[in-house]
């Protein structure tokens, strides 16, 4: 398995709209395995293909406490949704930033598994939040897009600062 690198906001590639998955071949299986590994390694609970610069409609997630129940959703569609919930979300592409986002409380989704078999699922709570968050990636949307322009700009600056500090630290380590 290969650990993939994750694109970070404000990388323009994160705004790409993904295309449907059409062939369920070995390369897709490998992508699912690699994405799952990448998600676990990054201590995430969900990852969309967009985030690893693959612009196909698939996402992996694992919201279990013990991180031992990986799931994959290919070509997901929301059939219906109801209610509202607010959850403090974070994103592997927007590291260290957390913000409350309002989303549907319950969703009914249709998707395919890694063999291309259709299934439907009723989701709620964190599971529903996570699927909606990842599905946003597939249409090029990030959770910070729900924030006011002012706040979004603050996030951008904060991340730039974080990166600068990290780069400086790396440099200092090299110097030593």
């Amino acid at each position: 398995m290969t650990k993939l690198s994750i694109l970070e906001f404000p990388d323009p590639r994160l705004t790409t709209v993904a295309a449907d998955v059409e062939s369920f071949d070995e390369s897709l299986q490998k992508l699912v395995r690699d994405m799952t590994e990448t998600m676990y390694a990054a201590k995430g609970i969900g990852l969309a293909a967009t985030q690893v610069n693959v612009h196909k409609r698939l996402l992996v997630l694992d919201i279990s406490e013990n991180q031992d129940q990986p799931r994959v959703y290919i070509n997901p569609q929301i059939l219906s949704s109801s209610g509202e919930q607010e959850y403090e979300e974070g994103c592997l592409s927007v590291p260290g930033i957390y913000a409350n986002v309002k989303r549907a409380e319950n969703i009914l989704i249709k998707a395919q598994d890694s063999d291309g078999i259709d299934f439907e699922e009723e989701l709620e709570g964190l599971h529903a939040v996570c699927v909606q968050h990842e599905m946003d990636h597939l249409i090029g949307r990030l959770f910070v897009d729900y924030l006011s322009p002012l706040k979004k700009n603050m996030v951008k600056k904060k991340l730039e600062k974080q990166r600068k500090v990290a780069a400086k630290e790396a440099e200092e380590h090299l110097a030593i």
Partner: protein
Amino acid sequence: MSKNKKNLQNPRLAAIKALSEVLDDRRNLGDCEALSRLEDDRDKAFARNLTYGVLRWLGSLEWLAAKLLDKPLKKREVAVQRLVLLGLQQLWHDHTASHAAVNETAECARLLGKPWAVGLINAVLRRFQRERESLLGRMEQAGKQFAHPDWLLQKFKDDWPVQWQDIVEANNLQAPLWLRINRLKADETALRNRLETAGFEVSDHEFARDAIRISPAAAVTKIPGFEEGWLSVQDPAAQLARDLLAPQPGDRILDACAAPGGKTAHLLESCQGIELTVLDKQEQRIGQIMQNLDRLGLTAETITADASAPETWWTGKTFHKILLDAPCSATGVIRRHPEIKWLRNNGQVDAVVQTQANLLDALWPLLEPGGLLVYATCSILKCENSHQIHQFLKRRKDAVAEVPALECGVDSPEGRQILPGEAGMDGFFYAVLRKSF
């Protein structure tokens, strides 16, 4: 998507996770990751107390929750259910400011991604505050104030018709912190000075000679002298095993189910010249014993083997003394491990009684004539203790039960039962069996 790590540092969420680790994953309370990863010491103590409190009062809290909820929560909403229990525990037993307890507990539902439950939890907890007295009164009328499962309560009533209420009460109290002084390494006066300087109050035990009690309770690593092997944490009731075995130089002694090695270490600390064989079934637990002995500056021959199958490990050399600290229901240490009440069942008790009988039968032939077998359990159920020994004495005509030389406990022809709380001790049973010539 990623979760906010701050959640991991929320003590109430950590308590919820710890409850799941104990009740769903059957993990020992002391090993809960959710508690150990809390960085702030105060948060850790708070979360730990909450978790213990909920496990201690679980049956009663469930009863209260059922009365307060209009309809039961769905099975899959176990986290919300536990948040309700957590809130009730705080309002009922903790001295947390009520307002904070209600709000912070309810807000945890949002962090769990269940915002719909915030209002519900708020309402339930506020209703408890309003109807507290009448609810607690009704709980007593329903006999649910003991917070013990029915099957276990019945067993206590059957076995201890006079004492059962005292037992239940003692089980629901927090246990004191008892230490055992390692006299090989530590001078008692010096140790006391160090403990008192560190702010602990130190007191003696009535008759366990190496036991001292310190308060307030603290994590072992925070107790001065622990790392250097001056002391161990051990209840005085467990320390009495040494008195009954009375190790003498030259004694060949078998410690049959030794882990975690507290009694093993005590024997070695008391008498240098003994030839001690230390046995446990699990490799991992043998490792734990070695680690403990190492810290205390002691060594012993350890064997990973099943004591009830001597053919697999016994060299043929008889022992002068055997300590059989048998696997048991642990019903004597409920005050330290409240989860025992909810994780055990009647069937498990029956199974462990059989295991104990097998161990007694298998080990008895390894004892030389005139030798001594001390049978110990941290149980207070007669089926594991006096009845077990009664049956054994019927099977083995060469076994005689001596009166244990102890200044405590309820006497029976078979042995001595210490009930939880007596002289600040855990519930323990000892039988002293002499093999006739």
